């Protein structure tokens, strides 16, 4: 689906920056607040959607994503108001994909019916792990029982669902992960995001890691877990379509594919990023204010909370198109490269530079485009470093 010459679509990303507590591994733009004035926030999101519509006329919305933070803390009415504002701002495609990220706490699960009624068709549940000790170590508020209940409930309410797991956790062995994954696959979901734990700068885990108090599995174990993940998901009918994302064919997250195919989207809410492309390989990157209060003040006084607008072109644009596109197992198509960079594939990656990587079995170059092999995907950073 993402290798066709049809464009990747146009997405709307809505960021809800609040969480009940901060997880120690998380570097997302999330903030803990005693209380918020939700009607003001609702109005803010609606206003900024209107502002973005003025910047991106003539598009048809193919996907909407409520991310966070914890969007499942939003009142369904707020979700509904945002969806209405989007529908008022742009034409919306038939069968538009509307995803909401939800934490699997019992309170959140209680709002599932409301989200569905507001128009959400897909949830992405932050399950993270299937045993209580691991959930505790990850600083999560939910336990295994709540996670299982949330999965069951989500299934009942939403036509599509996915959930997230974090693996290669401190102390986790390849065998333990395989057992956990086997249980996960037994649920028979259509989509899974399986992330290896990443130590992000500025997080509590980062400090512990630097001090040697948190130790990740060694590279060979990480590799073994990753490889087992590929084999097991494939066998269960959910092959990888991206480094960490797996789906039954046709059940891929259309919204996230917009990012990987260097398509267009607008970002609404604190810390949201957006991209609008111009012909000839130029892209305009927008970033909204990260601090919730600063963003809200911006929206209320000037109609938007944009902190930075940057033009990305030339070499810079080439780097990001390659960096994002090669994450997909289908790789980069000739057409996507041409559309996003204004140049043919051979011009952005000289065949001579490609040769050793192709000969080494890390990349494949054929008539449809350029893609990483399974081995190449696993060392994509190294492959990119050699390509650039």
């Amino acid at each position, binding site marked *: 689906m993402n290798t066709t010459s049809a464009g990747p679509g146009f997405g709307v990303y809505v960021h809800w920056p609040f969480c009940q507590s901060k997880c120690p591994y998380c570097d997302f733009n999330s903030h803990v607040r005693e209380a918020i004035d939700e009607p003001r926030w609702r109005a803010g999101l609606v206003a900024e959607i209107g502002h973005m519509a003025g910047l991106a006329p003539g598009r048809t919305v193919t996907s909407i994503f409520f991310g966070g933070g914890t969007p499942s803390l939003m009142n369904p009415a707020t979700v509904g108001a945002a969806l209405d504002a989007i529908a008022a701002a742009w034409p919306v495609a038939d069968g538009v994909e509307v995803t909401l990220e939800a934490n699997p706490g019992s309170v959140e699960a209680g709002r599932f019916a409301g989200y569905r009624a507001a128009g959400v068709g897909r949830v992405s549940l932050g399950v993270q792990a299937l045993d209580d000790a691991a959930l505790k170590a990850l600083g999560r508020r939910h336990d295994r029982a709540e996670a299982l209940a949330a999965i069951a409930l989500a299934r009942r309410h939403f036509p599509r669902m996915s959930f997230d797991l974090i693996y290669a956790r401190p102390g986790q062995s390849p065998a333990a992960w395989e057992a956990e994954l086997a249980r996960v696959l037994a649920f028979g979901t259509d989509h899974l995001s399986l*992330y290896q734990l990443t130590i992000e700068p500025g997080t509590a885990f980062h400090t512990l890691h630097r001090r040697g108090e948190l130790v990740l599995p060694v590279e060979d174990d990480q590799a073994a877990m990753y490889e087992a993940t590929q084999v097991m998901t494939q066998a269960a009918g959910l092959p990888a379509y991206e480094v960490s994302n797996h789906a039954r064919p046709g059940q891929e997250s259309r919204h*996230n594919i917009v990012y990987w195919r260097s398509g267009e989207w607008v970002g609404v809410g604190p810390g949201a990023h957006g991209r609008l492309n111009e012909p000839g390989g130029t892209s305009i990157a927008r970033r909204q204010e990260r601090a919730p209060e600063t963003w809200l003040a911006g929206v209320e006084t000037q109609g938007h909370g944009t902190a930075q607008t940057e033009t990305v072109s030339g070499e810079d644009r080439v780097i990001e198109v390659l960096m994002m596109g090669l994450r997909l197992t289908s790789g980069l198509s000739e057409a996507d490269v041409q559309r996003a960079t204004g140049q043919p594939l051979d011009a952005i990656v000289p065949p001579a530079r490609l040769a050793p990587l192709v000969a080494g079995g890390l990349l494949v170059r054929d008539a449809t485009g350029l893609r990483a092999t399974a081995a190449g995907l696993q060392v994509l950073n190294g492959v990119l470093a050699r390509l650039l």
Partner: protein
Amino acid sequence: MTPLDHIRNIAIVAHIDHGKSTLADRLIELCGGLDAREMRGQVLDAMDIERERGITIKAQAVRLNFVAANGETYLINLIDTPGHVDFTYEVSRSLRACEGAILVVDSTQGVEAQTVANAYMAVEADLDILPVVNKIDLPAADMKMARDAIEESIGIDAEDAIGVSAKTGQNVPLVLQAIVDKLPPPTSAGEDAPLKALLVDSWYDPYLGVVILMRVVDGRIRKGQKIRIMGTGAVRDIDRVGILTPKAVLVDELGPGEIGFFTAAIKDIAECRVGDTITDERNRTAEALLGFKPSVPVVFCGLYPTDANDYNDLRDSLGKLRLNDASFHFEPESSVALGLGFRCGFLGLLHLEIIQERLEREFDLDLLATAPSVVYKINKRDGTSFELHNPADMPDPTHIESIEEPWIRATILVPDEYLGAVLQLCTDKRGEQVELTYVGARAMAVYRLPLAEVVFDFYDRLKSVTRGYASFDYHLEGYTAGDLVKLDILINGEVVDGLSQVVEKSRAELRGRAVCEKLKDVIPRQLFKIPIQAAIGGRIVARETISAMRKDVLAKCYGGDITRKKKLLEKQKKGKKRMRQFGNVEIPQEAFLAALKL
């Protein structure tokens, strides 16, 4: 102009860390050379690298005014010198500008190898020596031991050597008075004689350009004067004349016996060789001063810019650095693996390390250094012979009749309890014992050793087996034929010419294995597996394999991550400049340095 009998030119010499620079601090303070705000510990160690390592690298001159017991003011030119053996050339040059030397001896350590070596140098240069015993504030201080050791090993009267604490300042005023009373003033043909000055040192100052430090012997030097540098024949007009207090202060003129600096719009650094004589172009002196003995480099390595575009920058920087360090030599060379660079000669491994670091810091260059090597003499079958500075240039073994390598005579002073370990180390390093005696409670071992063995990890091992209690000094003795072979290192099947080395045949395999293991440790895993081999004349003697990287990919990368992750990639791309490409493989510079440290 100060009358000659009111001038003293003094060098402070000692073994490393015996407190020369700290004593200089106290002397400067007592004479009011710097105010409290300007003062800091070891103020004459002006370079960052000196302050970080706590050692003096460059000799540094400072002019002091001292009011002596007779109420008269004396002008004291003090030169603080380095103690480490690699910087002896700084000491020998400094001594030539002085009539007296303060020999500092640490009262807790006594006489060490460099105490003896520096004292002899001062005697040879005809200097009077004032012994000073330092660190008497320490509980372990032993005045008698120190005095006895001075008398015994150097043969000068140390009966009333002053005991001081350079740290607390105790008794330091006595040293100033003793300089005036016991050390001689300069002699001269007078201020009206034709100018004759010794070019002692030079450096490049971003504001002043080339600055020359000199010692006036006869005549006067002043702004506007047309001077001639006799050896090179360069003629220049003096722009500025000044003294160092240690701040640069301009003065109208300098006369006989004085030490100071001048600038003269000198562009070409080749014009000012240390040891040269400066005279008045219109009123030339008949005879030049005796120059300095040129320094003989004993360790060589190749220095290459990591970015080939920096080649010209590197050449200019080497020139500027050479201006400031006459003991450092360089000539262009090229390497298949590394491109265009320079073969550089040094007085030792610390010298090599310091020069490399100064180039990177002061001139903002990224460098690759090849493994260090000594100079071999190759005698070929056809009867010709040549000096081999770079192991990569070794001819095919079938053309070689014999290879000679430099040997040194080393003197090691060590407390008895560590003697066994030292003897073992010397044996490991192919040493031959010449003499074993005692100086007080300490053993003195004299050994002949191949310099190549010392160049590798001798210092570090000596330090560790003696917990730092040994002192070491050496001089070059001559060349001896040995059973030597060239060891090549192959990465990905290609010989890395920068890693080739000449080794003794019986140790070649061991060395080859060690280098391969080390490289395996320091070369990060890459996309493909990398074979590393050591070979002697085409025969593989050791082999290691670095397995391919297995996992290196960002788990998460969505719309909001693009900018940040892209920056990471760009940073990685910049890092590549420090890498060298060998077929499919990139070797980080650290790998060369690590092989060097073996």
